[in-house]
């Protein structure tokens, strides 16, 4: 039984943590919150240099050649720091799509640039697990035509992956460079300004099919990203709990620390339990992601639902523990509160994932 990361993987996580403690204080998060692009170039470059962006990409293609588990431990640290970094679409979705399903030319062209942070990947989130063909842009003869309303990193990204349909009505994954004049972008405000999106119109923009990937691969990518994102979520949930704990130790009411009242103690103990359960599911998701077998759908759902519930509860009760201070703009509480909702929704909301989980429980291999 070795249900844990290896010492080397943990050390990698520690390295990312120290880097973010140095480069990504909350002032950096707030700066990104308010600026035009919604992310910190400093942080992004540092993450590239630390090998995080290329962790899962093999060395020959410009990556670091570690693996998905390193991405998981690193993601936890990004979440903990509330890092204003376009990690979700660029590292967990776009890079993974090209790495797993791109042809050699596509991999050679993009992966090194994605690993170095010189290129930011974007991802169209419009579609659920049963994409509606009518919604998809059409990919024909190397040109993409149509619209997407929810493209993560749509403004800042250099290359996007989206579902498209062929002229024969087949869903395929398409890869499209965003700098082309045939791509019309418009920023789409989000509920967490440290995670940005755009709506895109492709007016016969040059694009290619991503290998032979279609709807099943699209779904698989979402499931993988759900695990990576779950690690960001549990990192953020732990941080929110620590904020609440620290405040409860320091803040006095009626002559004693509010953390000495059972109302607060038990609230935070309950959050802790939820975070631990979420962490266990995330670890299992990480295992399933590497095993890449039939366990992934259920494991990803478990990781995603548990992490979303944990961060929702932690962010919400962190505010409650902070009292009046917690609802002010100057407090960091609301940054977690926003992130909690964004992350819980962006790849599909909890009710949708609970439906996925139920299906997997009925058809998939037994849970554990």
């Amino acid at each position, binding site marked *: 039984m070795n249900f844990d990361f290896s010492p080397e993987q943990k050390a990698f996580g520690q390295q990312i943590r120290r880097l973010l403690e140095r480069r990504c204080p909350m002032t950096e998060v707030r700066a990104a919150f308010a600026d035009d692009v919604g992310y910190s170039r400093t942080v992004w470059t540092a993450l590239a240099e630390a090998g995080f962006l290329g962790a899962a990409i093999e060395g020959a293609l410009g990556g670091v050649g570690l693996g998905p588990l390193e991405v998981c431990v690193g993601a936890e640290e990004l979440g903990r720091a509330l890092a204003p970094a376009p990690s979700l679409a660029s590292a967990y979705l776009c890079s993974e799509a090209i790495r797993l399903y791109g042809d050699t030319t596509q991999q050679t062209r993009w992966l090194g640039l994605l690993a170095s942070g010189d290129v930011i990947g974007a991802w169209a989130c419009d579609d659920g697990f049963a994409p509606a063909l009518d919604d998809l842009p059409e990919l024909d003869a190397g040109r993409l035509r149509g619209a997407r309303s929810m493209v993560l990193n749509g403004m800042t990204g250099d290359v996007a992956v989206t579902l498209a349909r062929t002229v024969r009505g087949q869903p395929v994954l398409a890869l499209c460079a965003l700098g082309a004049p045939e791509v019309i972008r418009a920023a789409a405000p*989000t*509920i967490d300004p440290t995670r940005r999106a755009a709506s895109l119109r492709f007016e016969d923009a040059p694009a290619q099919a991503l290998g032979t990937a279609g709807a099943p691969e699209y779904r698989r990518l979402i499931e993988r990203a759900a695990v990576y994102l779950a690690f960001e979520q549990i990192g953020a949930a732990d941080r929110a709990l620590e904020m609440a704990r620290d405040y409860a130790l320091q803040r006095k*009411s009626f002559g*004693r620390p509010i953390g000495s009242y059972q109302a607060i103690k038990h609230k935070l103990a309950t959050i802790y339990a939820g975070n631990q359960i979420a962490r266990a599911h995330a670890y299992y998701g990480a295992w399933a992601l590497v095993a890449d077998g039939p366990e992934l759908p259920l494991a990803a759902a478990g990781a995603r639902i548990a992490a979303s519930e944990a961060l929702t509860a932690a962010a919400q009760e962190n505010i409650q523990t902070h009292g*009046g201070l917690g609802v002010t703009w100057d407090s960091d509480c609301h940054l977690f509160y926003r992130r909690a*909702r964004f992350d819980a929704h962006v790849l599909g909301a909890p*009710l*949708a994932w609970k439906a996925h989980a139920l299906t997997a429980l009925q058809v998939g291999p037994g849970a554990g």
Partner: protein
Amino acid sequence: MDFDDTPAEAAFREEVRVWLDSVTTRLGPDRARPTRRGGERLALAREYQRRRFERGFSGMTLPREVGGGGRQAIHQIIYQQEEAHYDNFEVPEIFGIGLAMCLPTILSHGDPAQQARFVRPGLRGDEIWCQLFSEPTGGSDAAAARTAAVRDGDQWVVNGQKTWTSGAHFADFGLMTTRTNPTAPKHAGMTVFILDMRAPGVETRPIHQMSGESDFNEVFLTDVRIPDAMRVGGVDDGWKVAIATLMHERAGIGGRARDLGWSGLLRMALQPDAHGRRPIADPRVGERIVDAWLVEFGAQLLGYRAMTALSRGEQPGPEQSVMKLVKAPQLQRNAYLAMEMADAFAALMPGTKAGVWREVEHAWTFGASIRIAGGSDEILRNIVAERVLGLPGDVRIDKTTPFNQTPV
């Protein structure tokens, strides 16, 4: 058992309606109110409040002799119910604290000179009041005031900081708790004053909430001089006065009719998406809407129970505390459900569903705030447990310890 007015209540309701029709305009079906800002907003509110006063609808339950309406609490409620359908010039937001909390306190605990000076002008809308009890280190404990008032002849010199003060930036006067004896236990060393908000040394700064709005202020007090004549109640005897003020507060806080409720959620759930799918088709969404209804309508019914007591001239029970306790977290859950219905696209609501989003965002941020303001969930459970169920109070060390030796 019925929900009807008594004949006398019905007659009063009609009186109110006729009068409202004569002085202001009925709102449209969306109940949207005109937005006014700055000086115009205050001037129109003062004017409307003066008319209410002249008609006897200001300070409804205060004695006629001091300028009040001389009526019962049930009349106040009927009045509010009716006025909710009209443009009220934001009088509740601007004058509410004075009318509901400060002026009744001055009437019960102020001296005759203070009553003569302040009650009538306050009721008439000439003067706006705010309440200066909360402090940065105080939290849920209104007795934790650290703002120091030191006697200097016929005056007191005040230094300290207040927070969460609504309307401080436009108020004329404030009712303020101070610490006058830091060596006494906390409840025995407080004194209450009337503060002239324009006195030198009073500085007001807005608090930015997470929603981006600023409904509250911090008030910094630096060597502010207050005449002893502005002291309400005895020196070091202010806890009694403060408690009287706070008794009026809880009734006024809670969700508002316009907050995102079950009917708004149901409306969203019936709205088809681009593919004709309606969230209501998912029984999990339906169940949550029913849960929202159970809480919201149940709380509304509890309100009717309180009104029934008032209508009989009795004191209502703990319905207000229970209503707030169940409604506040429900508002937060309602926001979550509204987002759930948008699935992934909830992330984009500020842009794509701007109209709906305003309502959802308010429930999301205000839902978090209202679980804290005016008696947090935790404080309310303590109140219900202790005052209703008779369970023991928390172990307290601060009741007997000298205030300046209590941990901060």
